[in-house]
């Protein structure tokens, strides 16, 4: 059958103007007319508009994402599916992905962040993997910006509210405050799941005649045009008015969905399964059919509705949460229905797979949409947008120059350790259940989180990082530095970096300098990922992060997952035994560029030093070997705040009060050495007798024995710093709560 679809009573007339109102360019609209060889119906136009939106089609980034290394000996599944997977041994695969929910979280912080967590979790269990860990990467405006407190409270509340209630521990993350995000915060949510290799699910429809099942919450008007308008247009007063019905998350239903879907998968009656994320029913149905090179027919009248009188247009575009679409093996519907009923969920047959390659929607017996599947799922336009490096070596950030009277090292240390970007984020992660499921060997607080894999000796380490300051100075080197930090954090836990997922947060790609930032960022990610043999198995691109024409700093967020063959050999960042030697391992002398010190006190040095990826790789390999051979007792990566802060943090062992006595030599008293943040430095502690072999392991890197762990409970650096560890820890812990309480 292919009667031209009918217009519905009340449908507006469709033309280029209407298309523009839907965010489609005249060129895109012409293409649609060409594909269909007629004007689309209002319903079809709606579907094209969301499916061809930046958010769903990646039309600005797709061409460039192809350069990322996505394959590798340990990669399973991967491109095409919802997320890739990494073989972590003993028949287990890890599925992980990170996704942005920036704009929704700015509009409605609690629900925006909560539904961000819900969405990424569905991406994981739709693959047949049980979600076992979450991470969150958060960027807010400057701490004193009037909206920051409200947004921080709402976002953290939402992430905890959802994650805690579905029973997935939030084990790591990051928080940064920077004026660059005053009008456009970033909320990137990461989830990781484990599956037996043979249980991995596909989102590729098969078998014409197979029924299509709808499971989960009923459909309401939630977030209609959320994807296309919110995530694909700059955020301004106008889009405020277009604000869709806010999506409200229902973590309880999500928990039922997780259990029911994983149980349903075990029956073997599921052919393909996909969550209804952005562009809801439209994307899930067309993508599953598209992957299978088949067609699909939906009877919208059968879709469970939350309110009466939704139109086909609304049903297809709704982004109501906690919904899944399943292609079942014909004749086994009842079997599946029974599983869902057990969990008080209802599986409803709303359509079937066809072999005619059409994506067709019926409403009251009439065809209201009928387009080639590929047209919406694959053939969205791909743009090669012009790019242009801004003048002045690409620096988009203006940093103050060195302040006239730089503070004493001790004063600088106290100031930096108490600045919100460096200080403890306990106030945040204390609100997250980091223990549920009983795998958390190391939760929030050390460089990376460490999870054990039950019924095996193996473990995973994970951390998410970003470095917008460095990316603002140089989007290419900044992206490399970010990957290096993520890898370092994981290696400091003793794990071998195994795979990457990334979220690329940038401004308006229609501006050549932003497009340039994006592409340079992807190139940096590519080069670093290749250097570490860490394929990029999944990711997400968030563009148009701008307010009133001001773009956020380029922010590629990198989540690294590493593996431990023996989780008992993991490392934490804390010194353990008085008398141990303290060493630093360095790939290059550190600089103040893009440092917290520069932000607080200014610095001349505003050019990132080049990064030698071979040496970075050596540092990672060395750390992993040290952990594996049990040669060192702690390892801590030097990041925000520099070496002095890293030394202090290494003293903050929750179990025992320790100190450090360090000598850096006269050359080591410069702000560069004490507070510089890049390139890579790691602080390790080890039994004296192991120091010699450590030097060998890290050749050709610079390894310097700088001191001893002491019982004194003081941090001493030559004669320039002599601070009480407990006092420093108090500054570190109280900074954020303190500043939040003083109103």
């Amino acid at each position, binding site marked *: 059958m292919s009667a031209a679809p009918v217009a519905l009573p009340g449908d507006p007339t469709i033309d280029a103007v209407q298309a523009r109102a839907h965010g489609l360019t005249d060129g895109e609209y012409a293409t649609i007319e060409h594909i269909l060889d007629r004007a689309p119906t209002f319903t079809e136009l709606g579907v094209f508009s969301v499916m061809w939106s930046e958010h769903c089609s990646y039309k600005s980034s797709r061409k460039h994402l192809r350069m990322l290394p996505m394959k590798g000996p340990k990669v399973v599944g991967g491109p095409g599916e919802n997320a890739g997977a990494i073989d972590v041994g003993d028949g287990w695969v890890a599925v992980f992905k990170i996704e942005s929910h920036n704009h929704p979280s700015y509009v*409605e912080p609690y*629900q925006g962040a909560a539904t961000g967590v819900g969405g990424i979790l569905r991406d994981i269990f739709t693959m047949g993997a049980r979600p076992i860990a979450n991470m969150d990467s958060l960027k807010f405006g400057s701490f004193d910006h009037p909206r920051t407190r409200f947004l921080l409270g709402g976002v953290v509340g939402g992430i905890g509210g959802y994650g805690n209630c579905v029973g997935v521990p939030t084990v790591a993350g990051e928080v940064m405050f920077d004026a660059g995000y005053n009008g456009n915060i970033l909320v990137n949510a990461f989830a990781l799941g484990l599956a037996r290799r043979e249980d991995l699910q596909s989102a590729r429809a098969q078998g014409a005649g197979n029924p299509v099942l709808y499971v989960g919450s009923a459909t*309401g*008007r*939630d977030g209609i045009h959320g994807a296309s308008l919110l995530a694909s247009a700059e955020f301004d007063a106008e889009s405020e008015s277009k604000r869709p019905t806010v999506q*409200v998350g229902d973590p*309880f239903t999500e928990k039922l969905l997780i259990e029911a879907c994983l149980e349903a998968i075990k029956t073997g009656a599921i052919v393909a399964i996909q969550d209804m994320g952005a562009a809801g029913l439209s994307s899930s149905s067309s993508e599953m059919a598209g992957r299978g090179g088949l067609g699909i027919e939906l009877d919208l009248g059968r879709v469970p509705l*939350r309110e009466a009188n939704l139109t086909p247009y609304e049903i297809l575009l709704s982004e*109501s949460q906690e919904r899944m679409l399943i292609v079942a093996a014909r004749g086994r519907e009842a079997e599946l229905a029974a599983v869902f009923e057990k969990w008080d969920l209802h599986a409803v047959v709303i359509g079937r797979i066809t072999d005619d390659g059409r994506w067709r929607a019926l409403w009251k017996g009439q065809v209201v949409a009928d387009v080639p599947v590929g047209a919406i799922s694959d053939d969205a336009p791909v743009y090669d947008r012009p790019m242009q490096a801004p003048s002045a070596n690409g620096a988009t950030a203006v940093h103050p120059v060195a302040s006239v009277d730089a503070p004493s090292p001790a004063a600088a240390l106290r100031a930096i350790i108490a600045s919100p970007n460096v200080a403890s984020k306990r106030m945040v992660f204390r609100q997250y259940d980091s223990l549920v499921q009983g795998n958390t060997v190391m939760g929030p607080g050390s460089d990376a989180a460490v999870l054990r894999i039950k019924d095996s000796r193996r473990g995973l380490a994970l951390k998410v990082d970003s470095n917008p300051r460095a990316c603002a100075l140089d989007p290419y080197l900044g992206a490399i530095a970010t990957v290096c930090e993520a890898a370092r954090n994981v290696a400091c836990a003793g794990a071998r970096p195994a795979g990457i997922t990334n979220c690329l947060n940038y401004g308006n790609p229609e501006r050549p300098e932003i497009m340039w930032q994006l592409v340079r960022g992807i190139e940096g990610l590519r080069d670093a990922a290749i250097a570490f043999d860490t394929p990029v198995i999944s990711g997400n691109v968030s563009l148009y992060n701008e307010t009133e024409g001001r773009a956020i700093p380029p922010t590629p967020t990198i989540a690294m997952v590493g593996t431990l063959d023996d989780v008992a050999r993991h490392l934490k960042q804390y010194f353990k035994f008085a008398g141990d030697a303290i060493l630093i391992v360095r790939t290059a002398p550190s600089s103040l560029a893009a440092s917290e010190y520069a932000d607080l006190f200014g610095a001349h040095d505003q050019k990132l030093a080049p990064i030698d990826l071979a040496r970075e790789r050596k540092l990672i390999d060395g750390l992993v070997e040290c952990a594996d051979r049990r040669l060192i007792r702690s390892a801590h990566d030097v990041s925000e705040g520099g070496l002095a802060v890293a030394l202090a943090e290494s003293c903050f062992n929750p179990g025992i009060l320790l100190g450090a006595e360090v000598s850096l030599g006269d050359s080591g008293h410069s702000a560069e050495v004490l507070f510089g943040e890049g390139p890579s430095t790691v602080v390790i502690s080890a039994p004296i007798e192991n120091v010699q072999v450590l030097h060998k392991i890290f050749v050709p890197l610079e390894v310097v024995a700088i001191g001893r762990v002491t019982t004194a409970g003081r941090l001493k650096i030559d004669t320039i710093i002599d601070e009480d560890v407990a006092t420093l820890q108090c500054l570190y812990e109280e900074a954020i709560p303190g500043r939040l309480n003083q109103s």
Partner: protein
Amino acid sequence: MRVKVFVTPRQGILDPQGRAVEGSLKSLGFKGVGSVRVGRYIVVDIDTPSKAEAATAVKQMCDQLLANPNIEDYRFEVDAE
């Protein structure tokens, strides 16, 4: 004055809590139960000369703090006490 504020999930916005209570009431065997909405009931004692002033104050309180304009509606009653 005593002001009573009634905050309810906006029409069309998902109310998981209401749905849960609805389900529970039904399974408890209550007949004829239709939709259930769960909101907040906030009682504010405020010392103002006139009802009118109390009303203006409370409206501001609701817009700024007591209700979430994205997902909730509110109404209030001022009764002198």
